[in-house]
Each structure stands twice: as structure tokens, then as C-alpha cells.
């Protein structure tokens, strides 16, 4: 086996591409190890079943809740809140963030305020929101917006700040107006960075959702696991966590796919 072609050797070389089988095997191995560790700890009786359920028990819990029709509505309740909160936040944050990174005056106006609010812990606002809005869907949506919006603003402003001035100048020498420069240079040039920002902040939206559901909700995966805690159903808690993880994985893949489709030029 020549040294240059050995895949083991390639694995140890920084920034080298690898055959797809090797990539998939490595990804699969991580899951096998995680589930293997879990199985040996739980089936082996190292950790009592009251604290750590077996994979089989979690699977049974999933079947049980799916069959009695409680899992679906909880999943949907969570997905709905995340979607509504995330979409509202993004629709406002993307244009304002682009303006903030492109126009010095917008930046001067918003930046101090945004950076102040951005560091306030979202959780400390939960009681206030409950007082103001109650414990309905609006409350949970508000917490997601509050947690995600200001972070999105700053990250998207950075994306548009990073666009080369030369590109904008080139567009001016081609007859662009300032409006053209915003619509036909800044906006398309920011697209890959904006999609990356959305992908990252989507993960945070899920985190805040669960925070909101743990405190005040009557449905959703966070509520499901809180209720399970009270009934010592550790298998259901694990189920809720696994479902949230899976949903996160799916949305992440959707964003990757979207970026590949609409910003292929930047791959």
C-alpha cells in the first residue's frame, strides 16, 4: 500500500478530502459509540433504571405515546411555537440587520441598544412575559423572539459589514444607484452568511422554547418532560430530549440543503 494513497494516512492529513464511505463510517461510529455506552450503562445495571432508562424502554415509551395519540400533539405544539417565533424574528431581523451593517447611522442608532438587550438573560424575562401576556402560545413565541432576534441582528449586521467595498464601488461604476447597491449587491452578497446565521440561531430558538415550556405551558415537548419528571417517568424525559434532538437535526439539514440550492455559488 503506497503511503500517499492510504486512507488512514489521508485521515491524518489536515484539510484532506476522504472517500464517502470513510465519512459515513465515522459519522455512524459516533452514534454506535453513544448508544453503545448508553446500552451498556443501562442494561448492565451500572446506573439504576430510575435514573437512566434502557434504549428499549425509551423506544417502548415512544410507541406507547404514539399509539395513545399524545406524542403527536406535543411535538406539533413545540414545532408550531418555534416556527412562528423564529419566522417573525427572522423576517424583521434580516432587513434591519443588513441596514445596520451597511449604513453607519443605523448602526449608531441601534448598536448600543441591541448590545445592551442582547446580554440580558432571556430567562429573567419569563416571569415578566407571563405577567404581561399570560401562559398562552404568544408568551412562548415572545420568549423565542426575545432570545433570538437581537442575536440575529448583530450576526447579520456583521455579515453585511463584511461585504467588500470594492464590489459596491464596482456596481456604482456600472451605473448602480444606492438603492441598486442595496438590492443587487449587498442583499445577494449577504445571502450565504444570512442563511448560516439562521441555521445557528434556529438551534437557540429550540433552547428557548424548552425554557418557556418548562415554566408555563400545557403542551409541548418541554411540558411533556416536566410532567414526566413529576411521575418519575425517566423514559419519557429521554424520549422528549431525543425528539428535540431529531427535530434539530432535521432543521439543520434543511438549512444546509437550502444554502446549497440558493447560494451554490458560495460553496
Amino acid at each position, binding site marked *: 500500500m503506497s503511503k500517499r494513497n492510504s486512507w488512514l494516512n489521508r485521515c491524518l492529513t489536515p484539510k484532506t478530502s476522504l472517500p464517502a464511505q470513510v465519512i459515513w463510517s465515522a459519522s455512524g461510529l459516533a452514534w454506535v459509540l453513544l448508544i453503545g455506552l448508553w446500552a451498556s450503562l443501562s442494561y448492565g445495571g451500572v446506573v439504576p433504571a430510575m435514573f437512566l432508562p434502557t434504549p428499549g424502554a425509551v423506544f417502548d415509551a415512544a410507541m406507547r405515546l404514539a399509539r395513545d395519540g399524545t406524542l403527536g400533539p406535543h411535538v406539533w405544539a413545540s414545532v408550531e411555537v418555534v416556527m412562528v417565533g423564529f419566522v417573525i424574528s427572522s423576517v424583521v431581523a434580516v432587513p434591519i440587520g443588513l441596514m445596520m451593517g451597511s449604513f453607519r447611522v443605523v448602526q449608531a442608532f441601534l448598536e448600543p441598544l441591541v448590545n445592551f438587550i442582547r446580554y440580558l438573560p432571556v430567562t429573567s424575562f419569563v416571569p415578566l412575559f407571563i405577567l404581561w401576556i399570560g401562559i398562552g402560545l404568544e408568551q412562548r413565541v415572545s420568549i423565542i423572539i426575545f432570545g433570538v432576534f437581537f442575536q440575529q441582528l448583530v450576526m447579520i449586521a456583521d455579515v453585511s459589514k463584511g461585504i467588500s467595498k470594492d*464590489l459596491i464601488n*464596482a456596481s456604482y461604476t456600472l451605473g448602480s444607484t444606492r438603492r441598486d447597491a442595496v438590492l443587487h449587491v449587498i442583499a445577494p452578497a449577504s445571502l450565504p452568511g444570512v442563511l448560516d446565521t439562521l441555521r445557528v440561531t434556529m438551534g437557540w430558538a429550540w433552547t428557548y422554547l424548552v425554557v418557556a415550556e418548562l415554566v408555563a405551558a400545557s403542551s409541548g415537548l418541554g411540558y411533556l418532560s416536566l410532567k414526566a419528571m413529576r411521575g418519575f417517568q425517566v423514559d419519557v424525559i429521554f424520549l422528549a430530549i431525543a425528539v428535540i434532538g431529531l427535530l434539530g437535526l432535521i432543521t439543520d439539514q434543511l438549512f444546509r440543503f437550502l444554502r446549497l440550492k440558493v447560494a451554490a455559488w458560495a460553496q
Partner: protein
Amino acid sequence: MTPVAATATPRLRVDNVTLQYKTPSGGTFTALDKVSFEVPDQQFAVLVGPSGCGKSSLLYLTAGLAEPTSGDIYVGGQQVDGPGADRGMVFQGYTLFPWLTVRKNIEFGLKRRGMPAAERKEIVEFYLNEVGLRRFADNYSKQLSGGMMQRVAIARALANDPQILLMDEPFGALDSQTRLQMQQLLLKVWEHSKKTVLFVTHDIDEAILLGDRIFVMGARPGRIKEVLDVPIGRPRNLDMVMDPEFIRMKRNIFHQLHDGPDDHAD
């Protein structure tokens, strides 16, 4: 605006232009000091000079992307006040829009102007042919070499049919082989279009090969030291770099650039 008879109006007139930058220490740095010159219609004018003598600054001022501290610039008799499609520019770095294909890059200015699609297509096809990129029309810029990107940049600027084409060391980042090909291509394209050009370069060979008139600049402060007309006929070709006239001129400019008391040889 000065009322001058149309025939006598130079395509570009730079009138007593001074450009100063503020230094971080609070002083001023004079990048261009009372620079005046003219470029008549259909002339290929070249600025040569050491690094930092204000060549790029002068092009940015002409393009309207920056404002002189004092003095005026006129293009086609109109005072420059902000950028516009009548002054096309090819930049020192690569400035293709990476989210657009070669074709769409060339089309960019025409679209901004609201030209109908059929007319746009005709112009784009013409310039794709001119710069030899037909086969790459639907590629994105990351799939192009440096030389190809600059060819697109030239086509994109010319597609707008500007009054003057400003070129800031467009081949500066290319290897010498590609550079020669690009010079040859530019000579051909220029023979077809006879555009007025203001071209910046470090390279004396490039200046003589391409230019009708050469402005030799000096640094600290940036100024025009010498104006030289190139006594070589057109059409030009790469062989002419061996002509005795060419070599005489090259020696002349070389001494202009490197003998000055205040200039760095680079």
C-alpha cells in the same frame, strides 16, 4: 463648466487636482499635488509611477468614487460629481459579483439601465466573443482563473459603452504569461472599440506596448513628472517590445522612475 467648442473638448480633463488624506496623527498627507492633464477622445493614456504615488487615487477621483480636496475633473465636458455608468472601471483586485454568472456579470450595468432583454443579449454575446469567454458564459467566478475574471471585468465595463474606461493595474496580479495574453487581447479589443482609456500600471513594457501617451508620475507628493508620446504605430503586437524605439523609450522611462531624488525604486 467651461464653454469650449465640442471638437476641442478633451474626453478627460483633470484640472489642478489635489487630494489630501488625514493621517491618524492629525496631520495631512498629500497624495496628489496639483495634478493637471488632459486625455483627448480615443486616446489610450497610461499612468506609470512608483507604488503610492496616487495612481489609484486619481482613478477613483475620475470615477467619482472619491472627491478631490481641491480642483476639478471633467469627463466629456461634464464635471465629475459622483460615480456613473459613463466612466467604466476595471479594478486592481477581482470585483466580479460571485453570485452572478459571467453572462449576468456582463449584463449587470445594462440591467440597471432597464435595457430590454433582447438588446442586452446581443451586447452580452458580442462582448463574450470579444474576450473569448463564450464557453464560460454560464460559469460562476469561482470557476474562473484570474485572467478570465479580468476579461469579464473588461467586458462588463465596456458593455455599458462608457465615455472613458479606467483601468487600475488590471493585470497586476497575473503571471507573466497570462499577462502577455491579456495585453494582446486588450490591444485587439481596443482596436475594435477605440475607447478613451486611462490605464494604470507599474510595468514599463506594458505602458509602452499599450499606450499612446504616458504620464510618468512621482511620489511624495504624487504628481506628474513627465508626459511622453509613444512613437510606435498601430496596430501593435507583442514583438514590438524588441524595437529600438521601444527600448529607447523604456530606458527613458526607467531613468525617470528610478533616478529621482525622492522616489523609491520598486
